[in-house]
């Protein structure tokens, strides 16, 4: 049954995918300015501009451009970046793992930060501990990402030199080290959202009758909290986490620029500003698929955690 569900969800992505395709194709071509302008800069003479446009196939009617795009797509070819002159697929292949790594890292940090603090806040609700935890994250939630990022960079990176300022690292460990600050920035933001909901759902679960029942069985507090409370409270949080991973990938746009991380977020911004149509198109499709997959995964994890979910 699960397999059929996955299949169904995957098939459901297709129409969205097609709509995204058309939309992006048109949207991108609505952008004022064109790749030629973006690449050539101010100086180019009209002849040079015309030559560049021809070279990029921009002199063709929209319909023809779209048809070519679709034909290439069917062959698994997302085209070639107009500015970097590299196949989009290769670019995505290079950059996506970086962003994914960062997103997963940030999610893990976020969860690691959020869960114990949310438990603490819920168990000590309405005490100063609760107040401090909630206040801290609230403040974090009210500050722009780049501000937090820059502060972390200045303090932990430049002043204390605990962490590198930017870059990506080569080995896995090195990567963890290099991406710590950006992951922390994103993770903190995520944790702020998670703490709020998790605390509320823990409070809710704490009053549930099955927790009472578990306590009446004489189980250890730790067992009650971990087996009975947390597991149930996490269910709603997982959904929220899934919904936020899309935002996280989007949020990486700014984090990646600040921390000089060569991920898809930065690539996307560069592509938008550089009018790199193929890259924008390719990335959007990748985003769409990615986010859909994250949602699907969220559903599956949800179903795993919560046996009540019947995705019949």
């Amino acid at each position: 049954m699960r397999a059929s569900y996955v299949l169904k969800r995957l098939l459901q992505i297709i129409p969205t995918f097609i709509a995204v395709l058309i939309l992006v194709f048109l949207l991108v071509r609505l952008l004022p300015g064109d790749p030629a302008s973006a690449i050539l800069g101010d100086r180019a003479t009209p002849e040079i501009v015309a030559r560049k446009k021809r070279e990029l196939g921009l002199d063709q009617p929209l319909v023809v451009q779209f048809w070519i795009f679709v034909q290439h797509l069917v062959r698994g070819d997302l085209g070639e970046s107009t500015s970097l002159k590299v196949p989009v697929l290769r670019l995505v292949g290079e950059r996506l793992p970086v962003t994914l790594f960062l997103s997963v890292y940030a999610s893990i940090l976020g969860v690691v930060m959020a869960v114990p603090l949310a438990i603490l806040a819920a168990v000590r609700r309405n005490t100063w501990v609760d107040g401090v935890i909630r206040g801290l994250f609230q403040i974090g939630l009210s500050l722009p990402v780049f501000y937090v990022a820059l502060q972390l960079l200045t303090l932990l990176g430049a002043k204390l030199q605990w962490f590198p300022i930017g870059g990506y690292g080569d080995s896995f460990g090195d990567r963890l080290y290099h991406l710590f600050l950006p992951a922390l920035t994103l993770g903190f933001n995520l944790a702020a959202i998670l703490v709020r909901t998790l605390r509320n759902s823990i409070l809710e679960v704490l009053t549930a009758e099955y927790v009472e029942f578990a306590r009446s069985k004489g189980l250890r507090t730790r067992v009650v909290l971990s087996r009975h409370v947390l597991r149930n409270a996490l269910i709603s949080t997982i959904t929220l986490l899934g919904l936020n991973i899309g935002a996280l990938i989007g949020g990486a746009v700014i984090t990646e620029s600040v921390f000089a991380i060569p991920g898809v977020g930065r690539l996307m911004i560069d592509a938008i500003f550089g009018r790199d149509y193929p890259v924008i198109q390719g990335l959007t499709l990748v985003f769409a698929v990615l986010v859909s997959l994250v949602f699907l995964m969220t559903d599956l994890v949800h179903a795993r955690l919560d046996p009540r979910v019947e995705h019949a």
Partner: protein
Amino acid sequence: MSAPLPSPVLRVRDLDVRIPTPRGELHAVRGVNFDLQPGEVLGLVGESGSGKSVTLRALLQLHRKPVRVTGTIEYGGHNLVGLSEAKLRNVRGAQIGMIFQEPMTALNPVLTIGEQIRENLREHRGLTGKAANERAVELLDLVGIPSARTRLSDYAHQFSGGMRQRAMIAIALASEPRVLLADEPTTALDVTIQDQILRLLLKLREQLGMSIVLVTHDLGVVAQTCDRVAVMYAGRLVETANVTDVFSAPKHAYTLGLLRSLPDSGAHRRPLQPIPGSPPDLRHLPAGCAFAPRCAFHTNACLGSEPPLIEIAPSRASACVHYAKLPLVNEVVV
């Protein structure tokens, strides 16, 4: 019954529960006293909000921080009030088990029934692995769940209402407790299933020699199941008696009102005799007898201070000033 009673398993004295709320402190249980004899089924009846569940929770010390519980709950020579968590764990579940009204909400939805039984066995019986599994099968069998072995790996939502309630009983019984606290175990069930569950409880009482505190608001259930009855109103016990006595000659105006308001007592399609009004707000109790504002018999004697629960006959107590003057259930008052 007039034979001298054996020493009770549970002695409750002056139990008070205070719940602070944003709108003032709620004195939910006020000076409750009762004994639970070995092998006895004690019915605790009363209207919604009268404090039955709060009392039951207090017995196991399940209330959390802002809630204050005072008084004594004597079990096995210890006072459970103020006992450390670690020591309480040896009582909770192990000695005194509890089951709840809504099996759907009282069973953890994300753990299998088997896991929920086994965790009890591990904690109190030290059983793990295969042994625990075997015992779990036995327990499910005991409560009458067919093909018990396969159903161990089911989740609560895969059971029907009656089976859930059975499963919950099986979980509570895993540690073979001496006392079972049952908080409205059948209210959510259909009559035919309720019937089955109540019979099951009685059977288990026989087999295991348990004492049961059965909370309910259904007087029929009391009549069919309990040995003794304690009637609760606004956080206090207002009457305790053997079950036959209560139904034949209630000695508290509230108990009387309750019995009279039941449809069985009047002729077909004739007006019933309700107790007027509704239960008081526990934050703003009237001075004197809490039932007085709804009581047809109240006099000035009911006002002033609250009448205590006094023994009026062997194993029979009432907190009604007028207990002696109350009519019988079917008697017509002029």
